[in-house]
């Protein structure tokens, strides 16, 4: 019986919505805009988040990076903290739970690379064979750096695909020679492409043996290296970084009240930071959008109240020929619900279109992704708004006195 009333009410609600086409459209506009903005924002941020997740997974999720850190205050005093090859040795010797470890020494003077008539700037890093494990870089052709390369300080290089392209090197650049810092390096390998993270190209780099890089820079005491390491299976990231902190602090003779002069980062931490930023953006925008949905709901209530007044006589007729309270109540409630659900659906389509448009109009931006929970939330919320703001007009209609309603002009 209730189902029957529900179907009949839906039928007459649909007829009424259709009969007042323009008004129905204007009524739902608030909901349409609200839902469209939620979906647009969510689809863009979710696309970004999924993409960042993938990227960091490729980066090696159980790896740690140790860098020197100088506080701004110290920097103004001219102090530069450093991580030295001694620190590397110490960690290699006494660190626990470490699977592979590699130093990374960035070119400190010129990072020019030449091939033929081409001269480009690239990221030149001195590192070891272990970098492959730690940073998950693999070669597409040729080979990676070997341990012996380091021991014999060979002048060889493994390059990224972007660098190869910039230098106009052939598809397979192995056995070509490039010039770095006035020395000739033989290319032994080409890295697989990794793509970009947030507009930063990961394929524009040149890897040379760590020892070669050191000799290239001269044996200066100023060396500041970065250390990357990967953990053994089952080792806890927090335990390891705790132990390394203690180790480095004592090696650097830091007293208890001094800050760390280095920083240990996990790729997970980086990812969490990104996730937090995205989460905050989503919540803030969600809040704003929630308000717009509320305003949309009030718009629906407004129009429904007008509609009840306008149809007072009709309500009187229906009551005279036998409509009970719940017939009238359901009809107006379902009309409000349908209006906002239709608004929600239109908004969903519009929002997804908008998100896709935004994502595709910014170069290098990940494609928009729309999660199921966002669809459910958008429709659920607009339905809720419809019912919430439909109750008052519907109750007003249902409580009309048939005689007064029939007399209404």
């Amino acid at each position, binding site marked *: 019986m209730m189902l029957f009333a529900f179907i009949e009410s839906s039928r007459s609600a649909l007829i009424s919505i259709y009969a007042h086409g323009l008004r129905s459209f204007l009524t739902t506009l608030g909901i349409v805009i609200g839902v469209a903005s939620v979906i647009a924002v969510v689809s863009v941020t979710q696309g970004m988040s999924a993409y960042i997740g993938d990227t960091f997974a490729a980066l090696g999720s159980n790896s740690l990076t140790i860098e020197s850190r100088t506080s701004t205050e110290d920097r103004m005093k001219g102090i530069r903290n450093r991580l030295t090859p001694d620190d590397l040795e110490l960690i290699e010797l006494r660190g626990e739970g470490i699977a592979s470890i590699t130093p990374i020494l960035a070119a400190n003077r010129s990072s020019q690379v030449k091939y033929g008539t081409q001269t480009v700037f690239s990221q030149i890093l001195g590192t070891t064979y272990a970098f492959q494990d730690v940073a998950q870089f693999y070669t597409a052709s040729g080979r990676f750096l070997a341990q012996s390369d380091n021991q014999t300080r060979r002048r060889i290089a493994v390059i990224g695909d972007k660098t190869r392209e910039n230098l106009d090197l052939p598809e397979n650049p192995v056995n070509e020679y490039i010039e770095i810092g006035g020395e000739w390096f033989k290319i032994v390998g080409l890295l697989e492409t990794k793509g970009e993270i947030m507009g930063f190209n990961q394929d524009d780099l040149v890897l040379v043996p760590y020892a070669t890089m050191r000799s290239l820079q001269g044996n200066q005491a100023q060396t500041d290296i970065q250390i990357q390491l990967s953990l053994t299976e089952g080792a806890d990231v927090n335990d390891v970084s705790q132990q390394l902190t203690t180790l480095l602090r004592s090696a650097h003779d830091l007293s208890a009240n001094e800050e760390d002069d280095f920083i240990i980062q996990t790729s997970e931490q980086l990812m969490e930071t990104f996730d937090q930023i995205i989460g905050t953006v989503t919540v803030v925008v969600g809040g704003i959008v929630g308000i717009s949905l509320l305003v949309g709901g009030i718009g629906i209530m407004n129009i429904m109240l007008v509609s009840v007044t306008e149809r007072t006589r009709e309500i009187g007729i229906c009551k005279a*020929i*036998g409509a*009970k309270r719940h017939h009238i109540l359901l009809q107006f409630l379902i009309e409000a619900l349908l209006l906002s659900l239709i608004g929600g659906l239109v908004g969903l389509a519009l929002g997804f279109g908008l998100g896709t448009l935004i994502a595709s109009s910014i170069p290098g931006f990940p494609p928009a992704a729309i999660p199921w929970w966002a669809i459910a939330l958008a429709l659920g919320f607009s339905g809720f708004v419809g019912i919430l703001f439909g109750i008052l007009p519907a109750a007003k209609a249902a409580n009309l006195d048939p005689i007064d309603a029939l007399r209404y002009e």
Partner: protein
Amino acid sequence: MALIQLDNITKHYEMGSQIVKALDGITIAVEPNEYVAFVGSSGSGKSTMLNILGCLDKPTSGTYLLNQKNVEGMDQNELSEIRNQEIGFIFQSFNLLPRANALGNVMQPLIYRGIKLSERRRLAAEALQRVGLESRMDHLPNQLSGGQRQRVAIARALVTHPSILLADEPTGNLDSKTSVEIMDLFDQLHQEGQTLIVVTHEHEIAAHCERVVEMRDGKVATDQFQEKMTA
């Protein structure tokens, strides 16, 4: 057994500090298949009478038995149900739903009975055929003439097979020729066994009825059977 049994019905309205006695001790009975006219000038209480008879309003005091059901103490929903089952309304201004076509209007009361769509369609089409509008089923009210609209309203009243057909100035908005057609239709329904009550101030209309009840100041002034005038 009387179809309608009113016993000492009163209806009072408060107008500021004054109490207006719209109905003042009405006792009257209507038998099945009677054809009754309630006449009187405006303010005589005939509209209130119609509201009470049609279960749109409840009397201040007195008992009203409609088809042996006591209307007293019924709530709005129960009154809706009894209107739907026992009464077919015909109004002066037709009161059709403007956005529904003729068929839709006639089907409307059947919705409240919980009859499914295909059955509603069949019954409504039958009722429209009975009033001679089978060719106008998909017309909207504003595409129909006054007489046709009132026929749709009559079909809507008939479709539920009510005990009483209750007409409030049924020809008030119609020209004289159409009025005659509508009253002929009423006569025909009466011959088929329908109970009819017509509230009117026009004597030509009342002349169609077998019994004329004249109201004055909320009371029954005269109540007499008459020789039916045939057109």
